[in-house]
C-alpha cells in the first residue's frame, strides 16, 4: 500500500491522526449522502418512467389523430389550418435544491386563460380529428414540461451520485488506508527509534560499567 511521503516525526503523526479523523467523518457523511441521493433518485426514476409512458401514450394518440386528419385533408389545407398558432405559451425556469443539487423547475403560462381557445382554424375545411389532435397536444404539454424537468433532475442527481460515490470510494480505498498506513509507519518508526535509543543507552551504560570496572582494577594494581 502506498504511503505518504512524510517525516516520521511525532508532530506529523498528530497531524495525520487528525486528518484520518476528518477523513473518517467525511467518509461517513458522503456515504449517507450517497444513500439518500440514491433513494431520491430511484423515486424520481420510478415517477419519471410512469410519466414518460403516459406522455408517450398521449403522443402516440396525437400522432394517430394527426394521421387521420392528414389523410382526409390535403397538405396545404392542413398546413394553412396550423400556420398561425392562437395560443402563446411561455416557460419560466427556476431552480429547486434537492440534497444540495440544483434542479430546474419549469412553470408555464398561457396568453389566454380559456382552455378551449387553442384551435386556430375554421371548421369548414378541417377535419374533426384535428381538434382531437390539437386538444390532446395541449393536454400533453404540461406533462411534457414536467417530464423534461424530471429527466433533467434525474440526470443532475445521477451526476451528483456519481460524484459522491467517487468521493466515498476515494476516501474508503485510498485516503483512509493511506493515512492508516502512514500512521502505522510513523508509529513503528518512532517505536523503532525509541528502541534504538534504549539499546544505545544500555550499550553506553554497559560500556561505562566496563570502563568503571577497568579503572577500579587499575587502581587496585597500584
Amino acid at each position: 500500500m502506498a504511503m505518504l511521503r512524510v517525516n516520521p516525526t511525532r508532530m506529523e503523526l498528530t497531524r495525520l491522526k487528525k486528518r484520518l479523523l476528518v477523513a473518517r467523518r467525511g467518509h461517513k457523511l458522503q456515504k449517507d449522502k450517497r444513500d439518500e441521493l440514491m433513494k431520491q433518485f430511484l423515486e424520481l426514476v420510478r415517477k419519471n418512467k410512469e410519466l414518460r409512458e403516459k406522455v408517450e401514450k398521449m403522443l402516440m394518440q396525437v400522432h394517430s389523430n394527426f394521421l387521420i386528419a392528414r389523410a382526409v385533408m390535403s397538405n396545404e389545407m392542413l398546413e394553412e389550418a396550423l400556420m398561425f398558432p392562437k395560443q402563446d405559451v411561455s416557460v419560466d425556469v427556476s431552480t429547486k435544491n434537492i440534497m444540495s443539487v440544483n434542479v430546474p423547475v419549469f412553470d408555464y403560462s398561457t396568453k389566454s386563460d380559456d382552455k378551449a381557445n387553442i384551435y386556430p382554424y375554421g371548421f369548414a375545411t378541417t377535419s374533426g380529428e384535428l381538434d382531437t389532435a390539437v386538444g390532446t397536444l395541449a393536454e400533453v404539454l404540461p406533462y411534457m414540461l414536467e417530464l423534461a424537468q424530471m429527466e433533467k433532475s434525474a440526470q443532475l442527481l445521477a451526476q451528483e451520485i456519481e460524484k459522491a460515490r467517487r468521493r466515498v470510494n476515494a476516501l474508503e480505498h485510498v485516503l483512509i488506508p493511506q493515512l492508516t498506513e502512514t500512521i502505522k509507519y510513523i508509529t513503528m518508526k518512532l517505536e523503532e527509534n525509541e528502541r534504538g535509543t534504549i539499546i544505545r543507552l544500555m550499550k553506553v551504560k554497559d560500556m561505562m560499567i566496563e570502563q568503571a570496572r577497568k579503572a577500579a582494577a587499575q587502581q587496585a594494581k597500584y
Partner: protein
Amino acid sequence: MSDTKYAYAVGRIRSMERKLLDKIGIERMVHASSPEEALKVLMDAGYGDSNARVSDAFEYERILREENKKVYKLIKEIAPEPEVFDLFLIKNDYHNAKVILKAEFLNQDFDELLLDTGSIPEAKLKMMIKERNTSDMPVRMKKAVEESIDTFNRTGDPQVIDLIMDKACFQHMKEMAVHSNVKFAKDLVEIMIDTINIKTYLRVKRMNKSWDFLDKALIPGGRIDAKIFIGKLEGPLESIVDELRYTPYGALLEEGIESYKKTGTLIYFEKLCDDFVMDFVKKAKYIALGIEPLIGYLMAKENEIKIARIIMVGKINGMPDDIIKERLREVYV
C-alpha cells in the same frame, strides 16, 4: 333545351367515368403490399404522367394535386359554360386568401402553401391583398378580406380569419350556384353547407364553446336554420337528432351520433357526411344530358382523390388494411 349543348361534354364524361376507380380498384389499392404498389394502381387508373413512372411513394401528394388540376382543366375545356365550374374553384381562392393574410400577419413567407387551382391566379390575388387593391375582387371576397383584416387587427385572433373566410366562401359558392340557375349545383352547395354545419355543431359542442362562437362558425345558406343548432348547443346530443329526424339528414345524424357516442371520434361521422353528399351527387349518373354529369364527375374525382390520399397515407404509415377501409368514402361508380 339548353341541356342539349352538354351532349358532347356528357359523352366524354361518360367515357371517362369508366376510368374512375371502382370498388375493385380501391380494394386492390388497400390490399397492395407496399405504398409503391398502391401508387401503381393509381397510375394505372390514369393518374400522373404516363411517360414518367413514379417510383417514390412520397410523390403521391404531387400526383394527386396534378390530377385535381387536370380534371378542372378538362371540365373547363369541354363545358359550354365553363364559368359555372368556378363555383368549385373559389374554395381554393379562399384558401389562398387565408394563407396570404396569415402570412402577412406573421410576417413570414408561406408561398408554398398557395394552390394554383383557384379561379384567380394566386400571384394576382397576393398582389391584390398585399396592396389592399381589392377593386377587382368578387364583392363577397372583397368584403371578407376587409372584414378579416379589420377583425384581426382588433383581436389578434387568427381563427377569425378562417371563420370569416369559410363563411364567405360558401356564401359565395351559393350565390354563384343560384346565379348559374343550375338547380343541381344549388342543391349540392346547400347540402354541403348543411353537412359542414352539422359537423361544426358537434365539434363546437365538444370544445365546450359558447353559442355566440357557434353562431360565428356556422355557415348561413343551408337548409337547416342556424337557430336550430344554436338552440340545441346545450343539452344532450339526442335532442338535435329528434329535431332533425324528419329532414333528409335524420338517418345520417342518427347513425353518425351513435357512432360518435360510442367511439368519441368524428371519423365515422365525417365519412357519413361525405357519403351523404356523394349519394346526392350520384343522381347525376341518371341524367342523360346537362351539366349534372359534369358536376358529378368533378365531385367523383375529388372524392376519388380523397380516397387515394387516405389509402396512401395509411399505406405509408403502415395502417392495417381494415382500419384504412373503415375510413374510406363511398365511390361514385
